[in-house]
């Protein structure tokens, strides 16, 4: 983090991510909220790039900004009255308490952990190393995850079928 360009990029991306996340909560229109969420995802992808994790950054854009958000858009489109605001909702106080607890917990962990600064340069090839790690030491979790996804797909087909 001693390079000036990286520092500027970090603060700009952090401002974009957090600003978009704040707007996600503040806007009334659900469709606008999803668009701010996508902007926040893209900002996080940019933060990964400043950490020289290019594969994770591209996967973040591909999966979160490209696929998950489409899923959310469909969910909003299928929700009746998606354009209403949440003023009539009585769960405001529990939500406030819960999110306050989460923020307090994360802040506590971030402040109390003794972070070690890695004195390394940028990685050369993250994609190849991730691939090798997935298929040799972590092959069992990888296979379990794919079995889980197949099961989810079959379940979706079963739900959709008429008979």
């Amino acid at each position, binding site marked *: 983090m001693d390079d000036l360009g990286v520092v500027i990029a970090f603060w700009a991306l952090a401002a974009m991510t957090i600003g978009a996340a704040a707007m996600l909560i503040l806007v009334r*229109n659900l469709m606008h909220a999803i668009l701010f969420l996508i902007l926040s995802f893209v900002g996080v992808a940019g933060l990964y790039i400043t950490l020289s994790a290019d594969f994770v950054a591209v996967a973040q854009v591909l999966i979160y900004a490209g696929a998950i958000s489409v899923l959310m858009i469909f969910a909003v489109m299928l929700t009746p009255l998606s354009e209403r605001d949440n003023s009539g909702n009585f769960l405001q106080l529990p939500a406030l308490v819960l999110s306050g607890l989460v923020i307090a917990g994360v802040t506590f962990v971030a402040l109390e952990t003794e972070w070690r600064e890695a004195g390394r340069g940028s990685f050369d090839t*993250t*994609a190849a190393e991730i691939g090798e790690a997935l298929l040799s030491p972590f092959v069992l979790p990888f296979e379990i995850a794919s079995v889980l996804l197949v099961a989810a797909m079959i379940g979706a087909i079963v739900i959709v079928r008429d008979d």
Partner: protein
Amino acid sequence: MSLLANWYDFRDLGNPVARLIEALQDAGLSGGWIYAISGLLGAIGILSFVGVAAVINIWIERRLIGRIQVRRGPNRVGPFGLLQPVADAIKLIQKEALQPDNADGIMFTLAPIVIFIPAILAFSVLPWGEHMVLADLNVGVLFLLALSSTTTIIIFMAGYASNNKYAILGSMRVIAMLISYELPVVLALLGVVLFAGTMSLTGIVSFQETYWSWLIFFQPLAFLIFLLGSTAELNRTPADIAEAESEIVAGFHIEYSGMKFGLFYAVELVNTVAVSAIIASLFFGGWWTYGLEEFIPGWILFIGKIYSIYFIFIWFRGTLPRFRVDQLMAFAWKVLLPLALINAMMVALEIFIWTEYEISAGIVLPIFAVVNFALAGVLIVGFGRVMSRTMERFPKLPRLVKDIDVPLPEPSTA
């Protein structure tokens, strides 16, 4: 070609840039500034190419489609109608920028602007010449896929913000189509990436240079799947159900007028050039052309290849009728996806054989080429036989619609 030539030697556009970097280093600037300045120069180069291409392509496309459909195309404004795009742009700028009453103003205005970001970013990872690449990403192919997946959201923004039933129908169709066609396209590119062993576009081009062969000779099936799938992702005519004029008027950009419509029109052409460039560098060697790049600059060869593939897209547009929505989806899921899966597995097997038994490339690559071409032929013909109903070239009797088991709509009781 070396970088030792003079700055006015444009055989390699890297020459003037290299001279400039040397001059900056002599001036005593630090690495970050030199990086920023050379990046800015590359970006300006790409933006000017994209701008010129978007204008020229309107003319090329209209003239060629005119020729295909036995008309003349634009031929009044300027010599051969060359100034027609300029006249179009002036007309579009003069028009009133209408916005529907209940439209979502910010999203409505933002969508045609934001949609240019992925289109232009795609050009940054393309290798234009041996040393001419703006951002040589290790994950270049995946980066391009990520860009194409974000286009979905922006088109949906345009359709949703218009507050028009045809616009929302068009954008829902886009989402369904892009999600369906992303799978075969990704699997086709997986074959290429597995074969070349790298996701960097520069690496894929240098693989083709090392083994002295374009990748289309090893991956014919992946090329066909990628060509057809990207036609759908580009919303071009055999698959332009998102803006089908005869069904939903103009689809997601029905409410756009003036230059906002012009931006949607231009981004389609820019995207087509980008996809042609991706195909050119993945399957046709990019700037590398069997030693021809020693005599002709690599970037001119690359642009030549881009426009050869662009011609195929125009040819599709001029000759093929539009698919129905369900036909298009069925084509993605029932034909392209299985073929792409078989292709990816075949490539994995071949790479396993190649690396495990350490056979020299000279013996094993021609065999792979022959096997893959045979496999592509067998799969395409076999799938055609299995999936289609038998074709009657000269039907003797007129047949009712229900005889060829097409589901008929229920008669309305009203």
